[in-house]
């Protein structure tokens, strides 16, 4: 926590982001922690001297910002048209059942966050799943299972040592 707060403060002090708009700060913070801690909102507002209510409105309006901490691994499933007609809904169903969470939420063990995104522009290769920034195209429910298994295995390894 202590670390997070001093880091947020550094970001807040960063002049380059300035020009009175809170969004660049939020993007920076979101990028760093993958969510916006309440402290971040408060500090940014105090620094820029703008009402907290405005910051909160912005933070809840844009989907790029999340107020809840995200899981260790982020899964984005493209719901673009091309991916849709190529079966991304089935894919989503499968992952939702596998992970036991609905899209947009994080598993209880804080390991996975399942999210949907509107078109990543790799339509030719749909359905697309992006895991921790790494694209994998032409996904099928079967493939997705394999993907999950791989990650789980690496996780177990980590825990062992």
């Amino acid at each position, binding site marked *: 926590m202590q670390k997070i707060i001093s880091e947020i403060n550094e970001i807040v002090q960063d002049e380059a982001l300035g020009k009175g708009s809170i969004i660049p700060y939020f993007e920076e913070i979101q990028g760093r922690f993958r969510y916006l801690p*309440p402290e971040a*909102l408060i500090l940014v507002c105090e620094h820029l001297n703008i*009402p*907290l*209510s*405005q*910051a*909160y*409105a912005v933070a*809840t*309006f844009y*989907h790029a910002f999340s107020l809840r901490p995200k899981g260790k691994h982020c899964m984005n499933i493209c719901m673009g048209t091309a991916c849709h007609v190529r079966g991304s809904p089935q894919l989503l169903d499968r992952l939702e059942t596998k992970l036991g969470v609905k899209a947009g939420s994080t598993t209880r063990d804080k390991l996975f966050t399942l999210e949907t995104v509107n078109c990543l522009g790799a339509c030719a290769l749909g359905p697309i799943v992006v895991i921790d920034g790494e694209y994998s195209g032409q996904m099928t429910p079967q493939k997705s299972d394999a993907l999950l298994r791989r990650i789980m295995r690496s996780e177990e390894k980590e825990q062992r040592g």
Partner: protein
Amino acid sequence: MIHLTIDDKSIEATAGRTLLEACRENGIQIPTLCYHPALEPYGACRLCVVEIYKEEQSSRLVAACAYPCEEGLNVKTNSKAVQRNRRVVAELLLASGYDTPEIVALASEFGVKEARYKMPQADSCIICGLCVRACKEIVGISAISLINRGINKKVSPPFEETSPTCIGCGTCVLICPTGYIKLRDVFGSHSIYRYSSDYDRAQCRICSDLNMSSKFNQLIEGVTSDAASYGISGDQNG
């Protein structure tokens, strides 16, 4: 001066007036919901739509509260199209507020008795944004804002907790057309300690300072009772 025709009446308006203002100046009534003279036009409720005809263009509907008067503009404030549209909008309002007397009354004004679609849960807030804008533009505090997006939009203080900046002036309550908003929703504590306790700590709900905690209260009682004696002029001279 700008010359335009509203409901076949030729009307003069000073530059920069909105159609709504021009209409009201000339005694033409237009229903409004999210409009308030003391606030910037918002154009969200769409009840004030009027039909405008520009030369060589097909007619279209615009929100009178925000559309500026234009030279030679021809405006119909109550045409078939306008009525149809208002009915649908009223029905949509009713769709979410079907259990709020104010909204039901409003809808019936447009001849809407029943909404063909009903939202899963009824809610008397119609996101007209009056309270939020009043808090920002009139009070200048911005204690509340419209949070979330789309159908989940709602009025709330930051973090959906009690507001840290609300001064409890009640303007939002006063301006709310449906009686949705209550002062206690936004009243809050100023304190920057964010810890809860099982104590029933009496805390000033406006300024939040702990000056209202029981002991302090007693102190004050003492002071007041001494001091108040000065209040009665009679007491001094006799």
